[in-house]
């Protein structure tokens, strides 16, 4: 299967995921925040796991975050993702940890602790994915993994 034909792996679509993916498609990624205690939640769900309130509101993310881990696949598992490509774990400014990909230039040395900002990528099959770029590209080199920047 060629890369352009490969379908982006389908998201898990639970009852509360659809609304989030609609906001991603509109390039306004929102997560649920608890109206009572303010906690943001990922993945989306039926209530607040801190205070058990079911009064949640969808709030647009600032797009700021920090890399807390990263990996580079050297083996292909998914048709849409030929190796090599990277996956990053990002702690959002709002609190939740999300998985994504780093686009563009990659840090020299460790990626951990680097500030990143949200961008929206359009996959070959039209699916919009939230991804990240380095917020400050000084002391950076061309992304050796390359995959996400494809």
């Amino acid at each position, binding site marked *: 299967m060629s890369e352009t034909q490969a379908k982006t792996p389908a*998201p898990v679509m639970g009852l509360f995921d659809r609304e989030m993916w609609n906001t991603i498609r509109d390039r306004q990624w929102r997560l649920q925040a608890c109206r009572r205690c303010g906690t943001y939640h990922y993945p989306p769900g039926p209530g607040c796991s801190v205070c058990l309130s079911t009064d949640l509101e969808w709030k647009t993310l600032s797009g700021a975050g920090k890399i807390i881990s990263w*990996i580079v696949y*050297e*083996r292909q598992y998914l048709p849409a993702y030929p190796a090599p490509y990277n996956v990053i*774990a990002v702690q959002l400014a709002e609190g939740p940890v*999300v998985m994504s990909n780093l686009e563009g230039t990659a840090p020299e040395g460790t990626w951990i602790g680097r500030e990143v900002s949200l961008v929206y990528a359009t996959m070959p099959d039209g699916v919009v994915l939230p*991804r990240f770029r380095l917020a400050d590209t000084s002391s950076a080199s061309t992304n050796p993994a390359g995959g996400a920047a494809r």
Partner: protein
Amino acid sequence: MSDLHTPASAGLRRAGAVVGVGNSDWVGDWARTRNGEQPSDACGYGLVAFGCALADAGIAKDEIDGLIVGPTTAYERAAEVLGIDPRWGDQADAVQSVIKACSAIQSGLCSVVALVYGNDQRSVGTQYGGPAAMGGDAFLSYVYHAPWGLTSQGALYALTFQAYKEARGMTEAELGEVAVAQRQWSSLNPNAVMRKRITIEEYLAARYICQPLRLYDYCMINDGGVALIIAEAGRARRIRKDPVYIEAVGRSDLNRGATSLAPRLTNYYLPAQQAAASQVFNMAGLGPKDIDIFNVYDSFSVHIPLALEGYGYCGIGEAGKFLREQKMGPGGALPINTGGGHLSESYMQGWNHQIESVRQLRGECGERQVPNCRHVHYSSDVAGKAVSIIYSR
């Protein structure tokens, strides 16, 4: 935490003992599956192992009045294949099966429990990553991040190790000590599928699967079965002169943030392991210094350094140095995964570690026997559920 946990389950101390263990022919079936054959199905591997365990215990099948089957076979069909109509039954993973068996015995629900696991994951092509990855129904994190290309449990441990090695200052070569040592053990184990020793140079020269983890950091995928028979302690002593007691158990979970992987990436399961350690060591009246063998669930090599620190076998940040200097292989300061574990013996999802623990305590392990083995600690931390058992003579 231990003070809250210990009294509730202290009654399980030496409530049950293992009187029989068995396994299918992992080595022979590996060769056959590599040749494209399907030697049996999941229940069939369990049947073979169960027959061996009964023979090992020297009891008849009709003495079994409790049955626990592993997660990879349906309870009813497995029981039908084994021909058992027990008065109590359940389904669980390896470590929970042992705890549940002891709980059922202690509460009088049954007195001789068969624990039977079979898995045909190699011959049926079970996928642990990719478009048909298993496990999403039980662990949402296994499938939730696929749109970004994050798939396979190995990748989750690669993310864990990347964060951990930087926080702790551990190197990839130090992690390599795990795969090298487990091959040293498996080279002494005729039941092990992969017995060729490797050097640290060969480890480092092997390809990355998901950087920072290499080929030898991953377990194999093979067909097979394992069975144990656990009896009420008094009955166990009448069955055989050398029963192996379940001395103590412990458990602590980290579920909050599990799908986002936060417990893996920010504290490497440490609080759960420390709480489980406190419970299991308090119940046993033992500490890490009393343990002769540490057997650790090792779908990936990364489990070992996390467990060394989490269960107090070394200080926080010292696992790399421990692996490099103290050693976990034959003759090392702390023998770990003496059968070769999932990396080198057989990927029986924790079940092979149970029977290896029993055989070491009985002194049946030939070239790999750890001398004067009295206490074996088993630990698993699958998806942040830290569970421990101490087996004793």
